[in-house]
């Protein structure tokens, strides 16, 4: 069997998001090959009338039932309540969605207010997580796969104007200043 089909099997049996690194280790190929094959699978699955989609968020991958079929899926699962987002939560989530991984000073700078409490709140709701990469001194924040699932998107790149708002000059500038 091909490595691609092995990855398909692994994504299928997993019950949580998996890093490409982890998948590569199990299939015994290098990370780059794994990402290539994952993208390949994504192309196969993420078409207009597919009942299964492959999500990708910051190096993590997960196979899910299409968001469009939420209603029938809920017959077999406890339905997950999304709940309302408050205006500050929404604004913070938007910046983290477009600019993540992003540090708190960068986020504070963009919103013009201290975001500590909101971030804590969003982490408690499981919508934002602290980046575990400890190479940086400051923790960076990014959105979770659960949040992506609730938006019904396959990846953040599907957001309107993503590339424009993602690499904004001021953000990269802040990066250098910090």
């Amino acid at each position: 069997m091909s490595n691609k089909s092995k990855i398909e099997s692994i994504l299928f049996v997993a019950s949580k998001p998996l890093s490409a690194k982890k998948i590569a280790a199990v299939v015994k190929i290098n990370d780059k090959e794994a990402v290539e094959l994952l993208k390949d699978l994504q192309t196969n699955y993420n078409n207009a009338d597919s009942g299964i989609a492959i999500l990708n968020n910051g190096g993590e991958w997960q196979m899910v039932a299409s968001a469009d079929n939420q209603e029938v899926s809920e017959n077999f699962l406890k339905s997950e309540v999304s709940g309302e987002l408050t205006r500050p939560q929404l604004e913070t989530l938007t910046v983290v969605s477009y600019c993540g991984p992003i540090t708190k000073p960068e986020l504070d700078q963009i919103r013009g207010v201290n975001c500590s409490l909101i971030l804590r709140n969003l982490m408690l709701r499981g919508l934002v997580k602290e980046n575990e990469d400890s190479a940086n001194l400051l923790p960076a924040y990014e959105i979770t796969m659960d949040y992506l699932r609730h938006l019904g998107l396959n990846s953040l790149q599907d957001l309107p104007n993503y590339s424009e708002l993602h690499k904004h000059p001021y953000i990269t500038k802040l990066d250098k200043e910090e």
Partner: protein
Amino acid sequence: MLTDLKLEKFEGPLDLLLQLVDQEKLSISEIALSKVTEQFFSYLDKLEKNRPEELADFLVVAARLIYLKSHSLLQYAYPEEEEAGPGLADQLKLYKQYVEASKTINGLWAVGKVAYGRTEPPIKSKEFVLPANVTTNSLYNSMVFLLSRLQPTEALPKTTIDHSISIKQKIDSIRNLLKSGQEFSFKNLLSSAQNKTEVIVSFLAILELVKQQSVRFRQVNAFEDLLVTKN
């Protein structure tokens, strides 16, 4: 110019600025910002009473507005200066883009389409295996690390804004000064100042009076004393 925007509705200083600029039907620029400076300041008093914990964020923007305003009034006093970081107008434009984008996100969120993952793995392991990194030592270290994170942060030193004198009080005292004479020296006015805040307040009071066309001032050479004359 009185505004009827409600304080509770602002997320933060940038949000307030954005709404003030919108209300004046201006597009975001440094000129627009200096035009709404006064309205912005009128909210600071209310803020101090109702949302004191957010005052610091608003004061940062207030300081930058004052800088912009004085810059636009006294352009010659500011030689070509490299600004540190993005300008306030640029920052506001950027903020506005994300506020717009948040509407899309809200739309997606509200539709409530959820992509469900599998919750149960098809095979479950029957025998118990202790994960390699679980040892009494690693548990202890992890607990100590957690406690260090829970350690209460020391309360920030509290300080209040120096309310020694307000711009209005200063304007009144300058008006009084001008009752007894046609002209006075700015340097003399400052010599009686109690602290830095009062120096700044005096300067702003003079700017305000110039704007109201109550006074004008003369300066023969750069960095020399200013002579303030009654109109």
